[in-house]
């Protein structure tokens, strides 16, 4: 503070001692940043830490004491067949859902990019499901997937295929729910890919045309590589989305159980049931920590593995 140069010319202005303009600016910036930072600390970081602490305790929510149990909740988790099933189910949702949504989203985006008339209309039509309530979508799909009188079985009947159980079958239910989620997320995926496609300079396509490249070669060697950042972004966002599937299962399985036979239960539904149905808060908190770690690791790994730089 002592090194601050004193004003030389003219009368000393009545400023607060020791603050230059640059310092004032810095203070302003810090002050402005402090508000969202504080908000973030209180609303995001603090509850996360509280949850972490809770995961080492046994707590039924009502009892005044929350004894420290160390790793007991975590040990119990991995011995709990329902948790393990929820974990494998969650991976299935990701492994099936993300690629399907990416491929279909890219397909629709490529098609819409070629449409000259009514492109806006098509974009809107594909995007509408995304802005519809997930619960509404899930219930409509539940009705469509009914064994008796559901539209899918009516269609199968027309081509002579026996009615399927869909949501009532332990082997089909998960995929039926994935279908509903993909359908809803398709519009969002399409918009992301459209933006990515627009960002590819047309000169590459023109050059390829001159060289007589086939459409497949153009797609394989120009579109796909230059779309890579978009694909990485979509894969990460999609993975996080499918790791957190909840509403659809709650709405589409009988009584929101995640059945039949736990075949559709996800980690988040497991957490919800343990915390809010069984009042096992410490146990549920341990499961949220596991989910957090999975998301963290997958995101880092994906970032490292799929991100590649293409220079042309």
């Amino acid at each position, binding site marked *: 503070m002592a090194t601050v140069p004193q004003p030389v010319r003219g009368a000393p202005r009545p400023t607060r001692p020791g603050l230059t303009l640059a310092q004032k600016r*810095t203070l302003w910036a810090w002050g402005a940043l402090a508000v969202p930072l*504080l908000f973030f600390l209180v609303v995001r970081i603090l509850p996360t830490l509280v949850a972490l602490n809770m995961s080492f305790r046994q707590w039924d929510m009502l009892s005044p004491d929350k004894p420290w149990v160390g790793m007991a909740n975590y040990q119990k988790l991995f011995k709990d067949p329902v948790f393990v099933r929820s974990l494998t189910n969650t991976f299935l949702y990701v492994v099936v859902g993300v690629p399907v949504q990416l491929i279909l989203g890219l397909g629709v985006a490529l098609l819409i990019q070629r449409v000259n008339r009514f492109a806006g209309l098509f974009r809107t039509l594909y995007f509408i499901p995304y802005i519809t309530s997930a619960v509404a979508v899930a*219930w409509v799909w539940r009705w469509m997937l009914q064994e008796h*009188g559901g539209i899918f079985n009516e269609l199968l*009947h027309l081509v002579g295929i026996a009615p399927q159980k869909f949501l009532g079958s332990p082997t089909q239910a998960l995929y039926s729910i994935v279908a509903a989620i993909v359908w809803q997320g398709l519009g969002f995926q399409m918009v992301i890919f459209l933006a990515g496609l627009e960002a590819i300079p047309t000169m590459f396509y023109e050059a390829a045309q001159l060289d007589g490249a086939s459409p497949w070669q153009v797609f394989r060697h120009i579109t796909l590589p230059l779309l890579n950042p978009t694909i990485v972004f979509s894969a990460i966002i999609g993975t996080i989305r499918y790791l957190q599937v909840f509403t659809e299962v709650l709405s589409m399985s*009988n*009584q929101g159980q995640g059945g039949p036979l736990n075949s559709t239960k996800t980690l988040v539904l497991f957490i919800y049931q343990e915390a809010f149905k069984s009042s096992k808060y410490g146990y549920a908190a341990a499961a949220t920590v596991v989910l957090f770690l999975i998301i963290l690791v997958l995101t880092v790994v994906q970032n490292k593995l799929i991100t590649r730089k293409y220079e042309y």
Partner: protein
Amino acid sequence: MAKRVAAGIMAVAVMSGVLAGCGSKTTTPSGGSTNAGGKVTIEYWQYSYTSKTDLMKQLITEFQDKNPDITVKTADFPYEQYNEKVAAAVSAGKGPDVINLYYGWLPKYVDSGFLQPLPEDAFPPATIEKEFFPLVKAAKMDGKYYVLPTAVRTLALLYNKDLFKAAGIAEPPKTWDELVATSKALTKRDASGKLEQVGFYFNAGGQGHNWFREVLVRQTGGQPLSADNKQVLWNSPQGLQAFQWWVDLQKVHKVGEIGFMTDDVTAFKAGKAAMDVDGSFRLGNLLDAKFDFASAPLPLGPNGQPYTMASFWANGLTKKATGAQKDASVKFMKFLTQPDVMERWTKAIGELPARPEVAAKFKDDPKLKGFIDGLAYANATFFTDETKDRDAITNAVDSVLVGGKDYKTALDEGQKSAQALFDDYWTKRK
């Protein structure tokens, strides 16, 4: 410089913390307090259910008119958040003096030390047992009554009279065999085998699991739980017999299909299910049904004895109520369990009276008849974790229907996961 900025941020943080503290102090209603003029304020909590909160508002006004020195403040919360709100209030040293809670939560509330037993001079156990239906014994823990209900619910057979008439069936089924025969007669499929109308809606996840555990098992001479509530016994040979009969409604007789029109409640209300086992709490949803329906006692099983399951929301005193607040709270609770209040409750809400003398007035109502009939012999199941107890049974059913397991293996596995819940509960309780 940096230090100064840091100090500034700290100051803001402390300030906002103080502000937040003040805010929560002023917005949270501070429980009971005695005012200078000898007036007592007590707080009552219930869950948000419009017809109930409306009636409660009227009742409180009347209670305050009769007791001008007592003021009752109320708060209501959605069912899903109810326990959370209570927990938050407890940890802040606040909350209600009188609370409405589900009987199934009682073990948890008592163990956490949230409730105090009802004072025996105001509510003598002998009088309770004489004046209330026996099912209120579920409100007794370690020999003491902790809560008392204004209204209760039972299970019964709901049947669509229009569909019965159309099929030329005069009476609802009275036995297991009649139920199977009637259900078959009322099930309709088209030429391709597509289900168009369900004779009896089989839904284990709805009230089916309660019907099995509390009714069917007893009807074969079995017991759902040991007398000390520690052993799950519904996989006994008798339980297996009941389980097989129950699952066969769907597996062999095919009188319904899980998932038809999403669930039993929707299908029955749409007039597409002729019969369903459901609780009296459903009557409210069926007020605008476009067909005539009635309730009948649950069909009798092999041992010929009637059984049904009861459940209820009841009012209890919290630890917070002491001194003048406790006296006022006891008065308020006595008021809420009066016969005339019960009668009004039944008329306005459709829930059943907890006292036989009041219930007798409703026994000829065709919609209430089956439920009222059950009050005399209903049992309220002891639950340690109602949701998972349900899942244990629905998973056993699904294991047979879509999991390819035999009845015994499926039932034994179900019992194992249910037993784990009870073991967990009792070891924690020491």
